[in-house]
């Protein structure tokens, strides 16, 4: 995951090169397209969803896809299409919050560790290594076990688990840049540490961070759905995709649409993030 991108800062027109290469990658564009679609769906959920995702209609439960209910109804007579549409909001929210937590906390740790070095660096990185010694899903489950099941706790858990990756990435960038001439120049001119960090160091980490975040969103959504599937994340009646799969477990033969569509939604979403992330990374890679 670590890409040395410091060269971009020194190559004139480096950024536009990056964007040009990205645009040429068709798969990445497809991913971007799917994502845009999901974002629009999430934003326009109240307009797009034909029904209230929470209203039950028990006498019409488990109806197959029809004109009224294009994705059928679930175990409680709720419209699956509406639930999938609203579910996109929840999934995106979880993903964004979790990645933000990891990004902010991780970057801060990485910055501090990389810039100040010495004992602080060692201690911080040891802690990061410790977190990485755990399989990530396991750690997330452990955190949720302690805090209690729920959407917020799941977000916190997934975010926490991802912190080390961002910390390492930022630290790596910082270490490379720290020795650059313009930093020394800036310091000679009397610029304070904070200024240097904000204006010189951070912007150079930006592109790898974007790549990492995009791929991280894929993992976050997947993990959140997994936790909800286990009953540890989103609680009923929230229309979260993983929770919907959990509820549909027994209906696998009798009403497969309850499982298919939410599962497909997760899959496409994650796929899109992966495509985009891959494309971003390839566009950054100096070797190809």
């Amino acid at each position, binding site marked *: 995951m670590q890409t040395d991108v410091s060269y971009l800062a020194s190559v004139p027109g480096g950024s536009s090169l990056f964007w040009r290469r990205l645009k040429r990658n068709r798969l990445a564009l497809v991913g971007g397209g799917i994502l845009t679609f999901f974002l629009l769906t999430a934003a326009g959920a109240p307009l797009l969803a034909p029904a209230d995702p929470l209203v039950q209609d028990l006498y019409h439960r488990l109806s197959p896809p029809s004109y009224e209910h294009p994705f059928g109804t679930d175990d409680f007579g709720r419209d699956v299409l509406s639930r999938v549409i609203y579910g996109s909001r929840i999934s995106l929210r979880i993903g964004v919050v979790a990645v933000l937590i990891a990004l902010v906390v991780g970057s801060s740790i990485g910055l501090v560790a990389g810039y100040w070095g010495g004992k602080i660096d060692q201690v911080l990185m040891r802690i990061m*290594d410790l977190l990485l*010694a755990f399989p*990530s899903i*396991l750690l997330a*489950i*452990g955190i949720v*076990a*302690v*805090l209690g099941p729920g959407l917020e706790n799941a977000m916190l858990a997934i975010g926490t688990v991802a912190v080390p990756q961002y910390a390492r990435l930022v630290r790596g960038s910082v270490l490379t840049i720290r020795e650059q001439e313009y930093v020394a120049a800036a310091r000679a001119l009397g610029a304070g540490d904070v200024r240097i960090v904000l204006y010189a160091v951070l912007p150079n980490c930006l592109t790898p961070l974007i790549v990492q975040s995009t791929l991280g969103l894929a993992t976050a959504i997947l993990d959140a759905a997994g936790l909800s599937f286990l009953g540890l994340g989103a609680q009923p009646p929230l229309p979260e995709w993983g929770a919907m799969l959990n509820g549909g477990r027994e209906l696998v033969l009798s009403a497969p649409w309850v499982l298919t569509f939410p*599962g497909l939604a997760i899959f496409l979403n994650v796929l899109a993030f992966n495509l985009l992330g891959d494309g971003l990374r390839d566009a950054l890679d100096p070797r190809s």
Partner: protein
Amino acid sequence: MRAFILKRLLLLFPTLLGIVALVFLMIHLVPGDPAQVMLGERASAKTLEALRQQLGLDQPLHIQFAKYVGDLVQGDLGRSIKSREKISRELLDRFPATMELTLVAMLFALVLGLAAGVLSATRRGTLLDYLGMTASLAGVSMPIFWLGLMMIVVMSMVLGLFPVSGRLSAHTVLPHASGFYLLDSLLAFDLRAFADVLWHLVLPGLTLGTVPAAVIARMTRSSMLEVLKEDYIRTAWAKGLSERAVVFRHALKNAFIPILTVISLQFGYLLGGAVITETIFAWPGVGRWLLLAVNARDFRAVQGGVLLVATTFVLVNLVADLLYAWLDPRIKYEAEEA
């Protein structure tokens, strides 16, 4: 080489200690009083106090930690609240089930992943490459629980090819020796049981191993592509070596190191993903037990389970690191110079 092994082994202890410390701290992150959470508001002050004493919560933190480590060294992980059994006993009973599943899944992931990756790299740009990479991209994006359920639908219910859950058919009798049923059935010379065990391992193994297979395939491809560009490969071609010799004896061996990183990381994924897979397939392993413990708010049990899995992961990484040294002479020399 020996110095490297020693150095690496020594690194093990602070890591393990760190894991123990983190797991130990878990119970202190519980909002509120853990004893109260476990027993509820109606619990009398006496029972609360008794549990607190049993958990050692009334002592200062460092003494609690010392006691925790002391107990651990003796193999005492406490008792499960719901079953009243020793946690170490329960984990030991279930550990072989999880390990057997994980190893089978890893085997599948390795075979499929390496094969697909090598094929893609050597047939770069062809339809095969494109298919392979699309499949692995799909694999990496696949929610494991969806995959498991779909497997059950298609393979078990529609096609009736594989059993839906469990490690054994109810009719099969196996003497409980190691707990690794594949091994046990062979030791008992019971081929029918062996087949039965294998049959039950297929779906969960495939489910668990798909994502790692995809990740390994991708890494193998990119690593192989790197290596295939190298000069010594061109020399090998020029010398007229067969494709098999070039690819396997030279390229793959040198491409293997980054792949090894991915493999050992994927082991972590397998251990974590086992929780979901075991739940779907009613597999009596540590993962499913852990989930039940979480639902029961049995913190001691959760601690024990997390500790076991994390330790396993650390040990696997250790083995991977040692394999590194064996594969890459440079690491050996670096370590010896240090």
